[in-house]
């Protein structure tokens, strides 16, 4: 009985180790294949992008881009580490603290203005009007400085994202070619060039100036107390909205439609290549077509990992500036809400208009990011063979 049990256990152990060993060997095979694939890529610029991120964000990724791509390709994303979340939390807290001073300034000055306004003994003194006007000028000075700084942050972010797209696109195009999506890369190449060229230029030379003009108009609009530039101010705002919306809709529409239409063509050509290898190469043809399958699937894994990493990097590049702009929008809105009951109507209106303009800036950055992410989504979707390998 005892001997039998030992025999059974030994057999069990043997089977277990064998299965584990088997699993390991196959995984190692894929491992090596993907590692080789990654080693052939030129990743210095991606590495530079990672290095230029804030340390809190860098801790979310692996130290080297090779490792990051490898991990993403093999195991997908895994962000369960509590310490990483905590570091993000502390980053957000420090950002909030940095913005709090400005927030206090604006609210404090408006409160003082409100108190003075309330303390002024009578309406008949025209001195009150001058006092309020000077308060308005003082508050507007601070608000305009902040607005201008925030717009500069936005402009830098647009440049940074556009720079990253320029960095990322050659690699993604190469990877698209390796999985056999030749005509797919023919679509994506002009799309990326359009993003870094036309869209960035439009954002820099039309949208951001419109936002700046809108901010300046809103200050001048309330300068005299009688809104005289209201319509012009609204025009700049709706103009910004239209330019952004049109660009986004057109780009997304064209790229998605083309992306769908070329998928089938690429699938056909890859299948033809496999079929040709299978049939026309004597003896080893079957093996060649099998190898072709493995190589293609590894390339697809690498391409998708690169795509996912590019999306994450875009998110990380834009996260901090977007957070900053968001806080500023929030600060202006809160200040407008707090000032409304106590001060005269100009200051809250100014704050509200500036907040609206900053929302446009926020939208411009988000639109650029989303356009890029959609493009990458299409890149990830292109497999070179319709309906999977």
């Amino acid at each position, binding site marked *: 009985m005892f001997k039998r049990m030992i025999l059974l256990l030994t057999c069990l152990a043997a089977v277990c180790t064998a299965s584990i060993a088997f699993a390991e060997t196959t995984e190692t095979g894929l491992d090596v294949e993907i590692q080789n694939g990654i080693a052939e890529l030129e990743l210095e610029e991606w590495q530079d992008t990672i290095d230029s991120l804030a340390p809190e964000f860098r801790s979310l990724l692996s130290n080297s881009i090779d490792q990051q791509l490898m991990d993403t390709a093999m195991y997908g994303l895994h962000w369960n580490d509590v310490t990483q979340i905590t570091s993000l939390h502390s980053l957000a807290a420090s950002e909030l603290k940095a913005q709090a001073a400005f927030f206090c300034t604006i609210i404090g000055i408006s409160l003082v203005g409100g108190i003075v306004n309330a303390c002024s003994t009578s309406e008949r*003194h025209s*001195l009150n009007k001058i006092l309020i006007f*000077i308060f308005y*000028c003082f508050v507007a000075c601070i608000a305009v400085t902040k607005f201008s700084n925030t717009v500069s942050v936005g402009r830098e972010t647009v440049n940074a994202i556009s720079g990253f797209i320029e960095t990322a696109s050659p690699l993604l195009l190469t990877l698209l070619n390796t999985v056999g999506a030749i005509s797919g890369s023919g679509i994506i190449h002009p799309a990326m060039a359009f993003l870094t060229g036309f869209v960035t230029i439009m954002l820099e030379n039309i949208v951001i100036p419109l936002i700046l003009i809108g901010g300046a108009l809103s200050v001048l609009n309330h300068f005299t107390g009688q809104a005289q530039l209201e319509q012009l101010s609204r025009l700049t705002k709706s103009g910004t909205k239209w330019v952004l919306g049109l660009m986004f809709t057109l780009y997304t529409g064209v790229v998605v439609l083309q992306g769908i239409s070329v998928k089938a063509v690429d699938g056909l050509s890859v299948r033809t290549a496999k079929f040709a290898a299978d049939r026309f190469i004597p003896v080893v043809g079957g093996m060649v077509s099998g190898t072709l399958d493995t190589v293609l699937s590894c390339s697809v894994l690498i391409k998708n990992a690169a795509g996912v990493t590019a999306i994450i990097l875009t998110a990380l590049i834009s996260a901090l500036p977007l957070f900053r702009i968001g806080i500023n929008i929030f600060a202006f809105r809160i200040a407008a809400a707090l000032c409304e009951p106590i001060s005269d109507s100009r200051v809250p209106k100014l704050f509200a208009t500036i907040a609206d303009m900053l929302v446009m800036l926020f939208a411009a950055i988000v639109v650029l990011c989303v356009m890029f992410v959609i493009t990458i989504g299409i890149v990830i979707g292109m497999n070179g063979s319709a309906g999977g390998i």
Partner: protein
Amino acid sequence: MLVFKIAAFAVISAIIAVMMRQYRPEIALQISIAAGLLILLAVMEQITGVLSTVSEIAHEYGIDESGLTTIFKVIGISYLAQFAADTCRDSGESALAGKVELAAKILILTLALPIIKILLESVNSLLLKG
């Protein structure tokens, strides 16, 4: 409480002024001016306290103190001018009151011009940026 003192003082001075007005109107006017000045002097100490606290807060939160000083000066000018103009009006010299207000306005504008200039410059730089 300072406010009780001030209230009592003001009411008593008003009564005396009203009583005196029947016999010597010019003395009544002088009484009201003197009472007004004394009330102002009584709260002067509080005002300096408020000023120092506000500028402390401003320093703490990094508010531009030169701008704040200008605003304080403007507030001071407007309160003083209001006081003088009210007194002139009480004594029936509304034309003089108007002149005082005009003078105050001019002074305030002279003080405020740098702020307005800075604002216009920053708006201009905003437009140049674009």
